[in-house]
């Protein structure tokens, strides 16, 4: 993208609440932003370090619950609760990262699913802490000094800042020796070790940063919807994140964001375009078509068609064993 394009995009983002007056659209944009953070976070682990985590909703949910519980039960204000949400999610990421050292590919996938399953069941059954399946209503809106970020426009800026921060963190990591070490592990792990990449350190780092970012997304979600229930651990949330990352273009910086916008808008567009019987059927079918025609994701496809390179950039197969 040219500097001009980037500037226009930034200007559009910053002024968005002024020209997108309809709060419903703004709601969709905010959800897209929250999922953008989540997709960026998953992409770090899946797209760069090459570890497919299907338990990512666990980090998201841990962030959401931590933030909600601290503000509701301990009456913390939003910002320290947010920090705690990030920290606790990061700690969970550390555990998963340590597991990833022993398990790769399909086995890692399953252990992450199981991890999320256990956390989810804890959230349902540990009534004293989590209020069980009833969930936690009335999560307060965040404050910034004297201002309450209760309005959609204000929350939009909070989410925008979070997306920008997450994007910046990803970008700096990816374009540093750390990001190169992630990619080295994805591409060829024995070779990466032979040139001195410490597998333990970098896999755990990738998992921790990724989980922390998902925790950020979770906290933002909790304070936006003002309600947290065990459904945040639903497998569909993880599936949505994976769809966003892979369809948008894994291992690219812009891919997850494009995916997040598209796949937040798509169900809402289908809500408007089709009656409810057809919405999910159409969603599934469109997903199949999209993967079928753009197997490597939207962003790599666009980059390839603009740069004139052949499409055959073989993303390495994520090693199964």
């Amino acid at each position, binding site marked *: 993208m040219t500097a001009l394009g980037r500037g226009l995009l930034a200007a559009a983002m910053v002024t968005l609440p002024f020209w997108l007056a309809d709060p419903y659209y703004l709601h969709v944009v905010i959800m897209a932003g929250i999922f953008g953070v989540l997709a960026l976070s998953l992409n770090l682990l*899946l797209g760069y370090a090459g570890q*497919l985590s299907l338990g990512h909703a666990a980090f998201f949910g841990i962030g959401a619950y931590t933030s909600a519980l601290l503000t509701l039960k301990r009456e913390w204000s939003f910002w320290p609760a947010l920090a705690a949400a990030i920290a606790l999610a990061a700690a969970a990421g550390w555990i998963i990262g340590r*597991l990833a050292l*022993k*398990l790769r*590919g*399909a*086995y890692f*996938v*399953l*252990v992450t*699913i*199981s*991890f999320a*399953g*256990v956390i989810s*069941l*804890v959230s*349902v*059954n540990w009534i004293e802490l989590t209020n069980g399946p009833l969930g936690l209503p009335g999560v307060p809106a965040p404050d910034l000094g004297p201002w309450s970020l209760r309005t959609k426009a204000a929350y939009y800026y909070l989410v925008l800042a979070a997306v920008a921060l997450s994007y910046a963190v990803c970008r700096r990591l990816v374009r540093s020796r750390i990001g190169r070490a992630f990619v080295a592990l994805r591409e060829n792990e024995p070779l990466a070790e032979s040139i001195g990449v410490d597998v333990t350190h970098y896999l755990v780092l990738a998992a921790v940063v990724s989980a922390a970012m998902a925790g950020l997304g979770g906290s933002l979600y909790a304070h936006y919807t003002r309600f947290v229930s065990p459904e945040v651990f639903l*497998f569909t949330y993880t*599936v949505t994140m*994976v*769809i966003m990352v*892979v*369809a948008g273009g*894994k291992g690219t910086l812009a891919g997850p964001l494009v995916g997040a916008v598209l796949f937040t808008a798509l169900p809402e567009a289908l809500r408007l375009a089709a009656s409810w*019987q*057809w919405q*999910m*059927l159409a*969603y*599934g*079918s*469109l*997903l*199949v078509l*999209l*993967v*079928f025609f753009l*197997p*490597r994701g939207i962003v790599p496809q666009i980059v390839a068609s603009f740069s004139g390179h052949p499409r055959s950039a*073989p*993303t*390495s*197969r*994520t090693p*199964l*064993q």
Partner: protein
Amino acid sequence: MDQLLQHLVNGLVLGGTYALLGIGLTLIFGLMNVVNFAHGEFYTLGAYVAFAALTLAGVNFIVGILAAIVAGAALGWLCEVTLLRPLRNESIDTTMLVMIGVWIAMQNGELLVWGGVAKSIPHPFPTAPLVMGPVAIAPLRVIVLVLAVGLIASSWLLIHQTKLGRAMRATFQDRDTAALMGVSIGRVHAATFAFGSALASAAGALLGPVFLAYPSMGDLASLKAFSVVILGGLGNLTGATVGGLLLGIAEELGAGYISSGYRDAVGFVIIIMVLVLRPSGLFARQERIG
């Protein structure tokens, strides 16, 4: 003690069905490297085909199950040829995503066709339980267990005694070498997917009468099937069989003696422990098919 025996019998029957689900998936997962999230949808398909055959067409129970097997195999084959074959050189998460799409589309298609109301599938067996001392079990469940064992045994024969089975095993060991030896990888993949889907479909047709048929019934089935695959090791039929039984019994005992709210957690925790302690599954000394 009486309670323990009943728990063990319950677990055995439940585990047999888990095993049947796991076998189909372990072949697809192990041999094709496809994380098949639509596996449970073939299970659902089997239940609905059996329902349609038994109530609408009015055929007998065994014919209904055969119809489900044929439908599962046909749709599985179609799915492989049209969707997975063109993507064979893509990464594992691309094919996974396509199967996620199939999962969503199939489930909502079923909702559209059959409605959300659960269907009860009729069966010709008596409902009065068989009683052996302190243990009670429905005749239908015994039949299901017997048929499941039969299907597992035929799968074993197919893998070990037929030319297709040899080709499948060779492909699992080393796809490139198998191709050099004249194995048609495309045909093996299509056959594997059709076979795995047919097994899932058969499981649905068998369990439909025990439980009920409804559109989202496949979600839990998929999850259990994945657990079984991991417990048993990729591509390991024996592992999937034993893993299924173990998972069934463990869940049953967990729910019986720990807490029913954490019933599914028992399965998850076992998986995590197995993976951490024995990363290639309980039974895989080295990975193999068969």
